[in-house]
């Protein structure tokens, strides 16, 4: 009895938040996002988890990272992220993760902090971004360790 109720409640919350979501607006300044999306820095340790988790960043599905060698299945869609902290500033990395098409036109890399302008999104994801602002900041903190 308790479980269906909890599930129903969770569903309400989900639907509620899905339709209450405003389209995300990014403060882009010369091809970068200088301001933290949460107002504070993220955690590299949490970011590594987001990076690896299939239902979150799943970044390894497309990228290789030598330091994560012990993890299986590094994808080849995107470039190796070794040394990426030296190639981009934190502000540039933030835009690359939030909405990479603003930098790499027509890229296959998904926008992780965008919640509109998409086609036939499955109902449970409508109005939501793949990652939350805090998760994006955590991933950025992790990327900054790749130097």
């Amino acid at each position, binding site marked *: 009895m308790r479980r269906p109720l909890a599930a129903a409640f969770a569903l309400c919350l989900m639907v509620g938040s899905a339709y209450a979501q405003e389209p995300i607006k990014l403060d882009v300044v010369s091809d970068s996002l200088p301001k933290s999306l949460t107002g504070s820095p993220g955690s590299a340790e949490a970011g590594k988890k987001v990076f690896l988790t*299939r239902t979150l960043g*799943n970044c*390894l*599905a*497309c990228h*290789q990272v*030598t330091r994560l*060698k012990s993890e*299986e*299945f*590094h*994808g*080849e*869609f995107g470039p*190796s992220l070794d040394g990426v902290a030296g190639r981009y500033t934190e502000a540039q990395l933030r835009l690359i993760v939030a909405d990479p098409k603003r930098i790499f036109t027509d890229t*296959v890399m*998904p*926008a992780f902090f965008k919640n509109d302008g*998409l*086609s*036939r*999104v*499955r*109902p449970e*994801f409508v109005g*939501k971004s*793949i990652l939350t602002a805090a998760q994006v900041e955590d991933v950025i903190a992790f990327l900054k360790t790749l130097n």
Partner: protein
Amino acid sequence: MLQRYVGLAAAAVVLASVATCASAQEAERKGIPAPPGHVFKTIISGYEFRSKETRALQDDDLENPGFLAVERAADIWKKVEGSEGKSCMSCHGEAETSMKGVGAAMPKWDDKLKKPVNLEQRINICRSEHMKAEPWKFKSQELTDMTTFVRYQSHGMPVTVKTDGPMSPWFERGKQTYYTRFGQLDLACASCHERNNGKFMRADFLSQGQTNGFPTYRLRDQRLVPLHERFEGCMFDVRAEPFKPLSDDFLALELYVAWRGIGLPVETPSVRN
């Protein structure tokens, strides 16, 4: 062509450096030359992207689990069902001769319905109109078995599909869908199967997404999977709301994707992971 080879070479380097389980096989995937004006220079079956073990399983008629479906359906072919008192055999005789080539040329234009129909639909039209039997549900074992059996009669024959005349708006519609990005991940069929085939993505090498092996025995599911279920799966994975199986959208897509694989030998029942 050059770009592809460079890509493959780069892939090989990356693979070596991250020490995944891949072998050197991917350097030499065999394909057939595409006709002029085609999107690919070389058309390559999904078979070539699978492991040695998976390919061996497909090649062994005794071990390939897809053949159980062929055997099951061979019996159903002769079984009388429906109020007309007919079996498939009553109208078509021996499938080995009457069905040869049929499955290689689907979807086909249906003059009565004024639209293309695929093999599953054709089988169900025969059931409801000529046998007065209940049509089989999509994904039912019966329908997938019979589709596999009929397509198997074209084993080794080249995929051919008509795309002109009344088919051309359907072809264009399928093409449009193929290049449209869908879902929260915002990816099109082309993002994976055209731009990135040959590359490694998590546990799989991406193929050209060809349809010549369908229905295919999927090791993961331990059963035969019809083509529109694979389409659904690919859309679901990019967090998109898939079109419905046997919908006009998927019919158009099936036609277009069949054209992308024109000339490939029918491999049904193929084995995939």
